[in-house]
């Protein structure tokens, strides 16, 4: 068994940092920090979150461009009226629509990418406390089997305002 999640809730940043340091000292460096506002990355000694968000707009842009070219070229080829002796495929207006399609593709895929990379949507909230959006800081760690009491004591020693243990699943 992997163990149970335990959350310490701290009022002050320094208290949360102290608790995080103790978790790292005890070999539990894979913890989650929950805050109500963005803190500089690494402020609590947490692991840096890796992501591949930058790939998303590129893929979306390529897709959007291709669809826009297909739609504009297809539209003109489907109704090939020659006007003023010009070619059927009018490139300058195709570029305008392709530009919008490219940007729309990039933006839509970035938004999907942010949601996906943020691991959202989550059906279950897991360990959480509404006080986090009031300025409290939550440290969530999966305590190894039988270590729950030690983590609890460690959080309380760092002056945790509250400690919550994940309920046992049925």
């Amino acid at each position, binding site marked *: 068994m992997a163990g149970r999640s335990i959350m310490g809730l701290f009022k002050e940043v320094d208290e949360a940092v102290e608790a995080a340091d103790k978790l790292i000292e005890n070999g539990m460096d894979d913890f989650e920090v929950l805050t109500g*506002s963005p803190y500089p990355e690494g402020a609590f000694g947490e692991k840096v979150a890796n992501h591949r968000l930058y790939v998303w707009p590129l893929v979306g842009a390529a897709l959007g461009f291709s669809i826009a070219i297909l739609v504009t070229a297809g*539209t003109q080829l*489907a109704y090939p009226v020659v006007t003023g002796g010009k070619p059927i495929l*009018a490139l300058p207006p195709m570029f*305008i*629509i392709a530009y919008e399609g490219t940007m729309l593709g990039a933006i839509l895929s970035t*938004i999907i990418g942010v949601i996906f990379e*943020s691991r959202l949507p989550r059906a279950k909230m897991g360990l959480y406390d509404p006080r986090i959006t009031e300025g409290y800081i939550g440290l969530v760690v999966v305590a190894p089997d039988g270590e729950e009491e030690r983590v609890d004591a460690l959080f309380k020693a760092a002056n945790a305002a509250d400690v919550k243990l994940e309920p046992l699943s049925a």
Partner: protein
Amino acid sequence: MQQRPTLTEIDINRDLLRPTLATPMWFYGLMMFLFLIVAGALGAFAWAINHGTGVYGLNRPVMWGFLLVNFVFWVGISHAGVMLSAILRLANAEWRRPATRAAEVLTVFALGTAALHPLFHLGRPWRIYWSMPPGYDFGRGIWPDIRSPFVWDPTAISTYLTSTALFVGLLLIPDIAVLRDRSSGMMQRVYSMMSLGWRGNTRQWKLQIIAGFLLSALILPVFVSVHSIVSWDFAVQIAVEGWNATIFAPYFVIGAVHSGVAGVITVLALLRWLFKWENYIRDDHFDALARLLIVVAVGWFYFFVIEFMMGFYPNEEPELSLRNLQLTEWPFNAAFIVFALTAFFIPVPLWLFRKVRRNVALMFWTTVMVNIGMWLERFLIIVPSLMRKQVLTFNWGSYNPSPIELILVGGSFAMVFLGVLTFVKFFPIIPLADAKEGAIMATEIRVGKVMVPAAYREE
């Protein structure tokens, strides 16, 4: 020295969520008032659908009147909204915090309202899909001409509207989570669903911040393209004097920025008065925005002068007759004087004074003035040009807006304000996370005998 009050996260939640969680009674009264105006405008639109476009004051050769003027005006307002938000985010300007979402929300509702105007203008609005690539009516032999700017225009506007609305929605998720934690009953369930299970972990915050920058960078080129394309609705028409100008795209873009930044300042002043947010929308925010506006206004004025002067330069009779109409014939001469005074000559010299820039009431009225001027600018571009569209004088025409058009124009203003107020009722219009981050980062340092904010631009 700038005064920054010390605010805790509890203070920020309480103050900025007040319109949402403890909505005052006057708020509902104001919404009802605006709703009645909007309902009147929709009634006028229904009347126009029932009786046909003959109820508008349009007639040959002036087939574009107040509705198209208003369309360009609202597209313009919408553009600077996101431009302002994007530029400030990318520049990491500390004073962006209270302005970004207001600018973005104004963009969404102004653009949505603008998008309704072509519908008002159509005799058969249900056939708007004919202008959109997926909806061409091939079955009826409708020729889908992608060479027409009326195809580029809906493509660009729908791209911009979709992008901006999603941008606002994405960056709203952390604030919806705050509402989820503060509300109860049905609204709590709705906010829970909308917050997508947001917890506020490091990964989620990191991606939110990157999303703000990345999407700003992606939306900026869209913003430039959309108002360029709106200008091409006019500029690619070689038959209309005054329209076929190569300068139109940048001239329209910078004009949009001028009116839009002014619109954002107007909205910020209103929000500060209505919700007593002096601690969040401070005098130095107005000061900084006004400085930006001086630069934009001067840039816009330069383009205006060039466009106007180059019209005279060839000394051709059709162009001269148009300029003669704009400058010397009633009521266009009066409109021109009001436009020049309100869009530039009164507000810009006033903004040079620090006391004016930091006076909210003066900033409110000068920015309202700018938008009166910018509305008239669009009117002077569109209507007189069409009145002098034909070379021979017996083909010249006139235009008088009908009451239906006036109701629709008035209704559009109520629609935008109702949209912004509806947003304020359900979501925080000043980003909570941004305000909290600003409060965390604001450290004071001692310089000599005074304490100054370290994370803040000093004057």
